[in-house]
């Protein structure tokens, strides 16, 4: 009892920081429940991924292998993981609440008949979990019953696991997948190309809203600031809906949750759904021409100004600072 299986998502042959976050959260949960953390990687060819994963101090790494695990698809992955959970006797299955984690884990929970807590932000000593509800306006203390429980963690709420002194043993398992019942087909992935840091991992995030007025202005006005600051770029829903920027830049209750050291909101009013995705940032700065904008109620530093004047000036000021 008390063992935690951590599903570690990989992207392009690597583990993003969000997966290392799941490992640390899984280790914390296992420790509080008197069990051990076991990391799981699933792929058609998991060997090198498994040896990478083994560096991060889990009791064991399980490499689930099957041709059907080549591209991520919910039905095949849920089948493979459910069989592993049953044979391992683990009490918890945990993953990060990424797009993949959100898609997969409820399906797995249903397969196991297990309850699921989404996007937890803390683990109490007694094993109860804390998760935000109502766009972060309430923090719920959650208790789950049953032999197996499913959990996703919010990436910004936990640190990333660090490499341990010695690698964990790797166990390769041929996944149990009934091909006939795996009925989804992967067609294509249209990747948003960007050389900038990933939104949820960046130390600085600069986000733009409807105030930018066009996709062109994102490029000519906001991007120079983003790049001068070495930041990741984010956006409000209004900017994404208007087609100024791609969907995966949306910060908020129903987009990505970020908590960088510095969040700069430009031309964003600060609707509750947006605040839900950034209010845990360490320092918040806001530029808005409306001094009554709600974003100023959470900003450590607010500048009431026209962004089309202020942002180019800021690019120059940051440049000066770097030169001095």
């Amino acid at each position: 009892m008390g063992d935690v299986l951590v599903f570690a998502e990989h992207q392009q042959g690597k583990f993003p920081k969000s997966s290392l976050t799941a490992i640390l959260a899984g280790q914390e949960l296992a420790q509080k429940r008197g069990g051990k953390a076991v990391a799981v990687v699933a792929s058609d060819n998991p060997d090198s991924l498994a040896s990478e994963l083994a560096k991060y101090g889990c009791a064991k790494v399980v490499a689930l292998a099957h041709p059907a695990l080549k591209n991520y698809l919910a039905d095949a992955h849920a089948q493979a993981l459910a069989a592993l959970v049953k044979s391992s006797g683990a009490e918890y299955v945990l993953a990060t609440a990424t797009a993949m984690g959100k898609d997969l884990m409820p399906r797995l929970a249903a397969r196991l008949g297990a309850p699921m807590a989404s996007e937890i932000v803390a683990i109490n000593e007694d094993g109860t979990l804390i998760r935000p509800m109502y766009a972060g306006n309430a923090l719920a203390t959650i208790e789950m019953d049953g032999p197996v429980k499913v959990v996703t963690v919010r990436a910004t709420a936990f640190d990333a696991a660090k490499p341990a002194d010695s690698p964990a043993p790797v166990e390769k398992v041929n996944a149990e997948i009934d091909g006939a019942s795996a009925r989804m087909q992967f067609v294509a992935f249209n990747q948003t190309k960007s050389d900038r840091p990933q939104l949820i991992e960046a130390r600085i995030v600069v986000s733009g809203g409807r105030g930018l007025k066009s996709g062109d202005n994102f490029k000519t006005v906001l991007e120079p600031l983003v790049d001068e600051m070495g930041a990741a770029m984010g956006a409000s829903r209004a900017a994404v809906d208007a087609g100024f920027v791609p969907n995966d830049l949306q910060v908020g209750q129903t987009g990505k949750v970020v908590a960088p050291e510095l969040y700069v909101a430009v031309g964003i009013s600060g609707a509750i759904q947006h605040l839900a995705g950034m209010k845990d940032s360490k320092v918040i700065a806001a530029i808005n021409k409306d001094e009554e904008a709600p974003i100023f109620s959470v900003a450590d530093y607010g500048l009431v100004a026209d962004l089309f004047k202020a942002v180019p000036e800021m690019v120059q000021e940051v440049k000066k600072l770097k030169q001095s």
Partner: protein
Amino acid sequence: MKILVPVKRVPDPATTIRVLPDGSGIATDNVKWVINPFDEIAIEEALRIKEKQGSGEVVLAAVGQQSWQEQLRTGLAMGADRALLVRTDAALDTLAIARLLAKLAEDQKPDIIILGKQAIDDDSNQVGQMLAEMLGWPQATFASKVEFQDRKCTVVREVDGGLETIGFDLPAIVTTDLRLNEPRYASLPGIMKARKKELKEIPAESLGVDLTPKLKIKKLDPPPKRQAGRKVASVEELVQVLHNEAKVI
């Protein structure tokens, strides 16, 4: 095509939510109740599919209290054909809700079930995926485009780092993301017509599903309040304080 759309009643996203002092729930005295915004998008998508194909039926389904009739009527006024209300006053978890919806699906035999990706009150993002597993159907969550060719469905999904396309045969589950469509408003004639449409109540206990919640909310707490900061006078000052005071650049 027969389309089932599960609908949840939630506080209007524009309402400020406050936790009750005893932590037992949220204050509901000034709350306006609406259809979960993602479910409105689901209803809209179902109506468009029916309109495009020139035939079919859009059936709404909710698991909740008597008061939820209001939101089902709104959905009927948007253009849905009929509605089912699985009546219960119990606090259910997502597993029980998905099980009840699965029972309805076995009975109604829809070709596709379109749900919201998440309810904006509990923010769980679970029911659609659970339902897909219970029925053994394919799932396409976070859809921003849905297309059909006979019984084959192709969905573009909003995922980390871009857009993913997946394909599968019906029956299947789709959950909506914000960019899928812009929901219509109920028209006055729509509202008049909706009064006469069928809204059938089914007692939850009659469906033979174990409703005992495995997940319980022990209490709610308000989040820690963020101290409002101060205004700065110029861009120069902003960059200076971020460097010297906050030490983040």
